[in-house]
């Protein structure tokens, strides 16, 4: 039985307009949900810690992974050519896409060549970045996402809100409603076991009837021409092993030099992501199955530009574990959709401005710069430093909002003059004391979700001047 999906519609939240702050405001209207979201992600962060602390060599592993990635970035053209040659020798057909458009066209052509109008797809953040599903829908091709979380957001007509946990923002009751609407479950059924069983049945039918399967890639090995795909559900394998054509899409930064380096990365990836010692399946695709066609699409889409930005090239070391999101106090309380880009959270906020500075100028500001992201990153990306550096670039290039620029100028002038600073301090204290309504209102962003504190009677400077003589 075929089910209708809403996937043809544009995702309402992605590209709907609105800055991170505005979209976070929407998310923050439901305080209970924000608290639940916050606690759920923190719980995953705690699981990561527990798992990581079992390995005394953890920090040495991070250092090794970071250095392998530095080596990759500094030899990327060589490794890409090496990978291509090895993959071709293995019987894999290699394609190169300069940008999202070319990537989508290549995939579309492969589907046309295979004479199909339906495809099953496992998780690939790259295809989200390229908006592949939307593109194919306009060409009459139906894509079914097979990762349970991705299937759920697809039914909801939304993009994933987290790269590892695509529907982390959804309550089970909402998922129950979606399944009732699209998969024919009884109403008010929200038991996760029951809902998962329903999706299993529906997607098994999909796996058995699709001729083309698309997967993402976690790691590609230059030396051997093989690529590795990690899942817990087994959906990438179910798709690829049952299909006549397997298309794997990867960003060019996913290359690692040798097979033995997987030992380092596979130990880090899932422990960082969910606290598991490894994903259930770590599949190594080296050659097509007998009678099968295997394609790999190598995608640049701005990566070679990011590689040339000295301050930001380290973002290409990312292995997409999502640890920086789970730990981020801003992500946890604003939700993935507030980032209005395929990869949310701290890492997404340093990747996105590379693609479009104007559109994503708000994202590097969606951070407290607390540095927790950099501390948990398994490949030691200096995420919070890069967020700070992006702010400087964006201000210099004139992409920051006018109000913020004016406010910053006023602040700089005030802090630069001791007379103005003391006068402003006094004014602030008097205002809070005698006219609290002037600050406890919507015009003051600091008032959102909190009351202004009681004002002290005097500044420290005044207190010190009075008391030093005693």
């Amino acid at each position, binding site marked *: 039985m075929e089910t209708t999906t809403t996937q043809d519609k544009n995702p309402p939240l992605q590209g709907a307009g609105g800055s991170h702050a505005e979209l976070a405001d929407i998310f923050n209207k439901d305080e209970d949900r924000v608290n639940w979201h916050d606690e759920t992600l923190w719980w995953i962060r705690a699981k990561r810690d527990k798992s990581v602390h079992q390995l005394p060599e953890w920090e040495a592993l991070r250092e090794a992974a970071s*250095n392998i990635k530095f080596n990759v*970035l500094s030899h990327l053209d060589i490794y890409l050519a090496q990978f291509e040659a090895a993959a071709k020798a293995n019987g894999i057909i290699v394609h190169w896409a300069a940008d999202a458009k070319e990537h989508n066209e290549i995939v579309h052509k492969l589907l046309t060549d295979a004479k199909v109008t339906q495809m099953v797809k496992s998780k690939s953040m790259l295809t989200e970045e390229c908006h592949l599903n939307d593109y194919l829908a306009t060409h009459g091709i139906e894509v079914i996402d097979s990762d349970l*979380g991705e299937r759920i957001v697809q039914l909801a007509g939304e993009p994933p809100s987290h790269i590892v946990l695509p529907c982390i923002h959804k309550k089970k009751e909402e998922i129950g409603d979606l399944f009732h609407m699209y998969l024919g479950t009884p109403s008010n059924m929200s038991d996760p076991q029951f809902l998962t069983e329903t999706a*299993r049945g529906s997607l098994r039918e999909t796996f058995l009837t699709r001729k083309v399967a698309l997967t993402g890639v976690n790691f590609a090995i230059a030396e051997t021409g093989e690529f590795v795909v990690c899942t817990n559900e087994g959906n990438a*394998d*179910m798709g690829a092993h049952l299909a006549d054509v397997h298309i794997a899409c990867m960003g060019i930064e996913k290359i690692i030099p040798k097979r033995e380096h997987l030992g380092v990365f596979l130990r880090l990836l899932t422990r960082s992501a969910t606290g598991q010692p490894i994903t259930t*399946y770590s599949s*190594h695709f080296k050659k097509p199955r007998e*009678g099968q066609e295997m394609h790999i699409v190598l995608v640049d889409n701005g990566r070679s530009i990011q590689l040339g930005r000295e301050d930001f090239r380290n973002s290409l070391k990312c292995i997409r574990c999502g640890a920086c999101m789970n730990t981020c106090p801003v992500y946890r309380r604003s939700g993935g959709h507030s980032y209005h880009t395929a990869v949310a959270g701290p890492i997404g906020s340093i990747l996105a401005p590379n693609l479009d500075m104007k559109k994503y100028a708000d994202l590097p500001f969606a951070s407290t710069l607390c540095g927790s992201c950099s501390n948990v990153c398994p490949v030691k990306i200096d995420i919070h430093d890069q967020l700070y550096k992006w702010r400087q670039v964006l201000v210099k290039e004139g992409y920051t909002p006018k109000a913020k620029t004016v406010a910053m100028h006023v602040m700089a002038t005030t802090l630069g003059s001791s007379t103005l600073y003391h006068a402003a301090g006094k004014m602030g204290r008097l205002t809070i004391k005698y006219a609290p309504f002037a600050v406890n209102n919507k015009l003051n962003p600091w008032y959102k979700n909190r009351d202004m504190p009681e004002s002290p009677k005097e500044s420290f400077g005044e207190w010190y001047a009075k008391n030093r003589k005693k």
Partner: protein
Amino acid sequence: MSSRDKILAAVAASKPEAKPLPDIEPFKHIGYTDVLAQYETVLTTIGGAVHRVNNWDEIRTIVSEKYNSQNVRVLSLVPELDDVATSAYEINPSAHQLADVELSIIKAHFGVAENGSVWVTEELLGHRAVPFICQHLAAVISASSIVDTMHRAYMRIGEAEYGWGAFIAGPSKTADIEQSLVLGAHGPRSMTVFILND
């Protein structure tokens, strides 16, 4: 200029100065005092089942107690266990005929103590879909084959030639709905590893 050449040229122009590969040799010497116990603990924690057995007969007994091959389809890729299976695997390029398999029994090359996984390659499986499409999966490894860490695992794999291979660690699972763990997302609902003493 093709996209390939354009991308390679852009990368070559943007890449930073050469950095060396780190020495990962020290990681290869990390080990556990009791590799078997570690393996059993981890696999159990991630939702798998473990049986340490002394001979094939013990495996036959455990399998046939749980699966009546007259009523459900039990597929064996292990010649020693063909008699508890409905049928031995017959070469068939289409995996769709495997859709009704209840239990697949396979051999694995070795286990990895740090994460409870087994390493398989397609020669052991008949078809790549065999360990995924079944409702339940059982794998046999020898006790002496268990390595400590993933570093040792790749030392053992070395330059081995294969078309497809995988580490499989426990049953298929998901926690996508409110982080509630559910076993049996798309693949097997359970995974049993028989550790054969040798």
